[in-house]
């Protein structure tokens, strides 16, 4: 069994330089076809969302919730990410990300019919 995880750094370095390292990993394994992590859906606020959220988790979490992704759901999720997971978002960024998610990953979003 060959492990294909990308070894990058020791734990201490990892924790100190997590954001930078993740960007490197993503760049190193980009260009994969099927099975690659989903791209963020189009919409206003997409770049901020990708920058703040995808460093910790893949965006299939969003796809998975989109069939019932109401604004209230996304507000609760972003609040949980800030309070419990300590996502470094200020109030304005959190608001912008909720707006983006409600628009791009709601049950009535333009991409919903394609994704499901």
């Amino acid at each position: 069994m060959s492990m294909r995880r990308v070894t990058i750094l020791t734990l201490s370095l990892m924790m100190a330089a997590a954001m930078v390292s993740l960007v490197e990993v993503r760049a190193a394994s980009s260009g994969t076809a099927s099975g690659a992590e989903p791209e963020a859906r189009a919409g206003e606020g997409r770049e901020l969302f990708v920058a703040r959220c995808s460093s910790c988790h893949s965006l299939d979490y969003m796809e998975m919730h989109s069939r019932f992704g109401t604004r209230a759901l996304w507000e609760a999720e972003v609040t949980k990410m800030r309070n419990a997971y300590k996502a470094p978002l200020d109030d304005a960024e959190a608001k912008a990300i909720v707006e983006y998610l409600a628009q791009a990953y709601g049950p009535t979003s333009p991409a919903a019919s394609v994704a499901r």
Partner: protein
Amino acid sequence: MGSSRMTVFRAPVARRAVLAALGAAAALQATGTALARAAGQLLEALPGKRALRRLTHRPPNYETPLEYFRSVLTPNDAFFVRYHHAVIPQIDAAEFRLEVVGAALERPLTLTLAQLRTEFPAVELVAVCQCSGNRRGLFDPPVPGLQWGHGAMGNARWRGVRLADVLARAGLRNNAVELAFDAADAAPLEGTPDYVKSLPLGKALHPDTLLAYEMNGAPLPELNGHPLRLVVPGWTATYWIKQVTRIEALTAPASGFWMAGAYRMPRSAFPLLERFPSQESGERAPVTEIAVNSLITSTESSVGGRMRVGGIAWDAGPGIDRVEVSAEGGRRGQRAELGEDLGRYSFRPWQLEYSPLSAGAQELWARASNRAGQTQVERPIANPSGYQHNAFHRVRVEVKS
């Protein structure tokens, strides 16, 4: 674990088995399971694993397809994968160290895997490891969280040492309140709460609670906790800490996010046999034991309206007493014959030949009850995080004329 390499989990690039949504849906229908929400999700082989159903890439969350539950023991390479955090170390067994520390210990210890294997008696038992949120994706209305189908669970023969034996060597003081267990994984962000879970003394010292180094006769798979994991028979997988590197004997209840802020349910909605009083706060209680449950894994129609139905049932340890399969909205129940008994925490296989059924489309229900008098519910019990879904398993079948 300064000497171990740290990795950020990435899905594999090569040797990938991807089924189109239509193919996956057809395969599920063939097993007699209608899981419409699975359509659009992919089967994909992680390193060391067969193709499992992917929920998320990173952190990796993959569930076991239903076909593997036709055997009582779930193969290691088909066993589900569930992580909260994306930074997952690869730990060399020879480098591994388990620290046993805390204010409630006489003699803090550091143990190697070799010491665990040679200096303590080895114990084996079969037990179901099931995510608290298994079947969350079947709640209606939907509940946020990983949208699991039936496969966030598995049954294995675990081999390791009794946690109680390790704690005895360390000398547990009488001021101990809980034991806390730290996993080696981490979140990419420094501020995200580390995954630490605790157990009450009674469960930690129970002779069936193990520190396991083998699963089904082989070392633990990388994605199931290699080289050492906690095995807490009867309790949900949130307590089964993978890659456990640190045990702390606490003189006050654990207060981190993963105990105080997650894996909680309204207490009155779920009557429990085993509670965790030091973690209860009013109406909010931690998830503890696995709810009695069953799964239909095969149906085969034959002439004369006969239908051979097979499946598994399990609970938190009292043991399965009976499984009934019914047609016509539960009105015509027939009792299944229970199969091989691998122990009170194991899946229990069952089968029956149901007859007669009228030709055409039918819905069959399976309902298990245990020796403690607990039984599956007709509708899942709503709760904010979508835990403990144990409604009757319903499948659509086509009966030959």
